[in-house]
C-alpha cells in the first residue's frame, strides 16, 4: 500500500534518510528500530507525507490518497498548552471533519481521558500528555497510523489497554507503523521490523528473526548490534 523507491531526505548537507527502498503492506504491524538519530522519525514523516523526499519517490494506493487516511502521532507533543483535553478533541474532530464518534469514544475509554477531561495541557503529567497526543493523532480514524514513540511515560495499565486496542484495530484492517525503544511494545505490537542506522535501512526483517538469533547483523552497525544483543541476553 506504500512503496518507497530510493527515498532520500537531505538537509543541511547531510543525508537524514539515505536511499531507502521498501514497502508497507495493508494490515502490517511494522516497527522501525534503530539508535537515536538513525533517521526513524524522518522516515516516518516522509511516509506520512508531512515532508517531501528530496530524492526518490513514495507511491501509495488509492486508499491512502483519500482524505484522513493517514494518522500520525509525532514524537513531540504537538498540543496547545493552554487548552483543555476536551477543547483539543473538539477542535481536531472538527478539523478532521468526518464522523468518527464511536472510534473517538473507544479511544477516550481505553485511555481514560475523562479523568482529566477539563484540565489544560500544561496541568497534565507527562504520561497524560502522551495520551492526548496519541488520541489527537488518530482522531480521524485512519487506515494507516504512524506512531513515533507513543508510549513514553505512559503507565503500564494504560499502555496495556492501548496495545490491546491497537491490535483490535489492526484486526479490522488498520496498518500500524511505529517507532519505539521499548521491547515490550515491540513484542506485543510488531511482526515486521526495519533496522535503521545513520539514515540507512540496513535490513527488513521480523521480530521473530531478531529475537531468536537467526539474524546476521553487519559488523559495522555496532549501536544496533548492542541494542539487539542486549535484549537477547
Amino acid at each position: 500500500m506504500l512503496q518507497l523507491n530510493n527515498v532520500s531526505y537531505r538537509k543541511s548537507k547531510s543525508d537524514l534518510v539515505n536511499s531507502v527502498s521498501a514497502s508497507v503492506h495493508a494490515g502490517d504491524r511494522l516497527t522501525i528500530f534503530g539508535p537515536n538519530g538513525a533517521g526513524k522519525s524522518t522516515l516516518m514523516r516522509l511516509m506520512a507525507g508531512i515532508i517531501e523526499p528530496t530524492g526518490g519517490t513514495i507511491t501509495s494506493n488509492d486508499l491512502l490518497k483519500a482524505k484522513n487516511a493517514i494518522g500520525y502521532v509525532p514524537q513531540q507533543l504537538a498540543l496547545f498548552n493552554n487548552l483543555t483535553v476536551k477543547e483539543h478533541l473538539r477542535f481536531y474532530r472538527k478539523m478532521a471533519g468526518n464522523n468518527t464518534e464511536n472510534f473517538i469514544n473507544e479511544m477516550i475509554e481505553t485511555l481514560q481521558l475523562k479523568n482529566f477531561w477539563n484540565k489544560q495541557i500544561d496541568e497534565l503529567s507527562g504520561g497524560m500528555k502522551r495520551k492526548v497526543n496519541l488520541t489527537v493523532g488518530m482522531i480521524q480514524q485512519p487506515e494507516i497510523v504512524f506512531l513515533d514513540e507513543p508510549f513514553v511515560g505512559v503507565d503500564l495499565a494504560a499502555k496495556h489497554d492501548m496495545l490491546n486496542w491497537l491490535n483490535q484495530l489492526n484486526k479490522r484492517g488498520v496498518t500500524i507503523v511505529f517507532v519505539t525503544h521499548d521491547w515490550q511494545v515491540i513484542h506485543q505490537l510488531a511482526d515486521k521490523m526495519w533496522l535503521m542506522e545513520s539514515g540507512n535501512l540496513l535490513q527488513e526483517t521480523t521480530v521473530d528473526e531478531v529475537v531468536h538469533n537467526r539474524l546476521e547483523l553487519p559488523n559495522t552497525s555496532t549501536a544496533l548490534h548492542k541494542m539487539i544483543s542486549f535484549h537477547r541476553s
Partner: protein
Amino acid sequence: MLIIWKSIFKRITTWVLMVLIPIVLGIIIYPMIKDTVSQVSVPITVVDQTDQAITEELLKEIEDSPFQVTKTESLDLRLLSTGEAEAIFVFNDELEANILSGNTDKIVTWYRTENSYVDGLFKEKLASAIMSRVVRAEAASIVSHYRPETEWDEVFKYGLKYFDPRPIFEMKFEHIHSAQNTSSIDSGNQLLFIIMWLYLSMLIGYFTKILYEWRTDGILERLKLLQQTQYYYWSWFIGVLAITYSFSFVAIQLIEVPLNNWAYFIPFGTVLICFLFFILVKKKWSMYAWLISYSVASFIIFLLADWQIIESEWMYLFIPTWLLG
C-alpha cells in the same frame, strides 16, 4: 478556529500587547496631539478688496474659533506655500448686495493646498454666518411684499430670533487647490506615526512568533495532515489583518489627520513582511533579529525620506515611507 483564538487570548502577553500597551501609548500620546491641535491657531487670510462693513460683521461672528484671521485687500497666493495661511478666502466685491438679494453664487472663493487640513471648519462657519443672513433677507423681502406697511429692516432683525437651530445648507464655494508641495506630514505627527507603526509591527511580530511556536511544536504539521490544504495560513493572515486594521482604524480616528491612499496599505504590507519572514526564516530568533533590523532601518529611512535627504524608489521597500506617498 475559535478555540485557536481562545488559546491566543489566554496568554497574558496577548493582553499586555493588545490592551495595556495601547492604553499606555494613548495616555502618553493623546494629550500630545490634543495640545498641538488646541494650541496652534490656524492662520486664515480673508481678502476683501473693497473693505466692506459686512466682512467685519461676519468675522466677528466666527471669532471664538481656533482661527487666527488676517484681513487684507489684495490676494497673495504665496502665503499658502510659505504656510503663513492655511487657506485664503476671497470675498466678492458685492458681497453685501449679493447676500441681501439672496444670491449665493460664487460670493466667496476658497484657496487651499494639499496640506490644508482644518480650514474646512472655517468654511463651514463662514457659510453658516452668510447663510443666516441670506435667509433672513429673503424672509424680510417676502414679509414686506405681503405687508407693505412693515419695515424691511425690522423684519430682518426680527428674523434672527427664529434662527436657532440653524438650517443645514449647502453653499457654493469655488474651491481652488494650489499646486504647492510641501512636506506631507508635519513634524509633530511624524514621531506619532512611526511609534504607531513600531507598535503595529510589534503586535504582528508577536502573532508571527505564535505561528513559529505552532510550527516547532508540530501543530502546523498536524493541521496540514488533517486538512490537506494550507488554509490555516490564510486564517492566520486574515485574522491578524483584521486585528491590525481595527487598531489602525481606531488610532487614525483618534489622531484625526488625513492620510494619503498608500498609508492604508501599511498594515497589510507589514503583515505580509512578517509572513514572508515566517516562510523564509526558519528560526524564531532569526525572525526577531530581522524584524528589529527592519524596523530600525525603516525608522531611519522614514526620517531621511521625510527630510528629503533621500528620494529614491528603493526607500519604498521600507513600509513607513508609504506615508509620504
